[in-house]
């Protein structure tokens, strides 16, 4: 039996896209994770508070609506200040306004301190595999 890892997840900013969030929650639970789903319209502070309270192993940020770039700025730094220096940050969805080559988007978000950045349409299986690897869970 694997030790259960805890994920904090939610959709950042003023973003209300709820469908992917519900599906991801379902998929992560099926894959054996403990999931703290903050739903949509989550502020940076809410992620951090939940991560501390639940001693989470990773924070998964979704942004679909195009303001991801502005909404995600500073999250890494705030985590570090709150003592979450080692917590991995994942981000996925439609991260910027418009269709930008994914390499640029990835670079931008990695510079902002996200470990993993996912393009639109990434199936849950991919993230689950990455999570298991990164968090040392054997699949």
């Amino acid at each position, binding site marked *: 039996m694997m030790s259960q890892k805890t994920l904090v997840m939610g959709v950042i900013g003023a973003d209300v896209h*709820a469908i992917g969030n519900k599906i991801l929650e379902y998929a992560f639970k099926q894959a054996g994770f403990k999931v703290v789903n903050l739903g949509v319209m989550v502020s940076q502070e809410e992620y951090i508070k939940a991560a501390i309270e639940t001693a989470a192993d990773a924070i998964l940020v979704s942004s679909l609506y*195009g*303001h991801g770039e*502005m909404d995600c700025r500073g999250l890494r730094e705030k985590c570090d200040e709150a003592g979450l220096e080692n917590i991995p940050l994942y981000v996925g969805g439609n991260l910027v306004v418009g269709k930008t080559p994914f390499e640029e988007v990835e670079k931008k978000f990695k510079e902002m301190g996200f470990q993993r950045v996912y393009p639109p349409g990434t199936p849950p299986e991919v993230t689950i595999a990455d999570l298991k690897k990164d968090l040392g869970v054997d699949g």
Partner: protein
Amino acid sequence: MELKNKKLDENIFKQIQREVLQQWPTGKDVNFDDAVNYHKSIPAKKVFSNQLKKAKQKGDTLIQPRAGVALVNEHIQLLHYLEQQGEADLLPTTIDSYTRQNRYQEAENGIIESKNAGRSLLNGFPAVNHGVELCRKVNEAVNTPVQVRHGTPDARLLAEITIAGGFTAFEGGGISYNIPYAKNVSLEKTIYDWQYVDRLIGIYEEAGVSINREPFGPLTGTLVPPCISHSVAIIESLLAAEQGVKNITVGYGQCGNLLQDVAAIRTLELLTEEYLEKYGYTDIVVTTVLHQWMGGFPQDEAKAFGVISWGAAVAALAGATKVIVKTPREAMGVPTKEANAEGLKATKQLVTMLADQRMPLTHELENEMNIIIAETRSIVDKIFELGEGDAAVGAIRAFEAGVIDVPFAPSKYNAGEILPARDNYGAVRLLDCGNLPFSKEIIDFHREKIEERARYEKRNVSFQMVIDDIYAIGKGRLVGRPR
């Protein structure tokens, strides 16, 4: 305040107006008399209500994109392009998400950052920040009626500024711009705030200026059964009519099954007119809009063209008054103007090519219509029952009770107990009817439809079906068959 579906008292309206216009500095430039004069100078062919009424009479299906960027000149260029290259019959101005949340300061930052970056960092046009004059500049730059499209729970300031700014149509409603677009805002609050918007438009009507109002039909855009969106559309039409709105477009998001979609558009018009009539609003012009597939799109642009074209064909065959057009970039991000025009042109080709064909009223179509009618009547009548005859009160109690329930909605004021899934032919049915006030007959109908599919797919009825259906169109199917 005690919420009732009653015309807002003039004094209360005035009092709220003073507060609203102070929410952001641009509010002070709103002047009603000046706005009425301004509207009266707008040529008829640029007035939304007009064009829709004409299209309804002639049986035309008009096409309209979604579009909005942060800066005024870029936005004008965009609309020009969609009008000229895209052959749009009606234009939009889609508002950015910060404005929708009344976060005008963040919108202001977005404007500044966009100027610096040389590209739009906002996902829409921040009309409040730009103010009345710049809105008029936008409207004067084009030859086609322009609608404000958004998703704003509290749209009072936005309405004041954009209508004074010369826009002739305004999307939204106290339910349809809350449940899919908010998390923590109560329905009391949004219905009340939208009574204000509707009353504002009623006052314009009384001054001889007709502004088109469109409840947002597709809701969450994802497997919403027609009876749910129809019920919301009817209630919002009644609420709007009470405040004096006279020109209403009710909407529906394409589900993908031809018969169900045609039945939905036909019953939507029928039922809305019926209920308006029944509750004493007899001089309302009701038109319909079909939204091309509102759920997740295929990433591939050619495949997206297929989805777009199918929506266009269905709009024409159903005889919708207008169709809201997606773009081949839908799955990727806010489209370029070129991609937007491409979606429009594919749609234009089909609505004109199929203009002379209508889906014949067959036995199957009639059955489908009868189901939708029966379902919708159960919900709407129950709303009135719960509200002791008041649609506003009833709506709030109905959402509490799950008597009306929107699938996958983010709002905590939505019960979220129903589960939709497709039947074996792709029509959206209910795998779980939750607390919808359906007769045993209707509940059995849904169960049987889903079980028929389960038997065909040799699996049990389960949530996995729903997930498979959500991903299906992105993967080229309508029904999410097991792999």
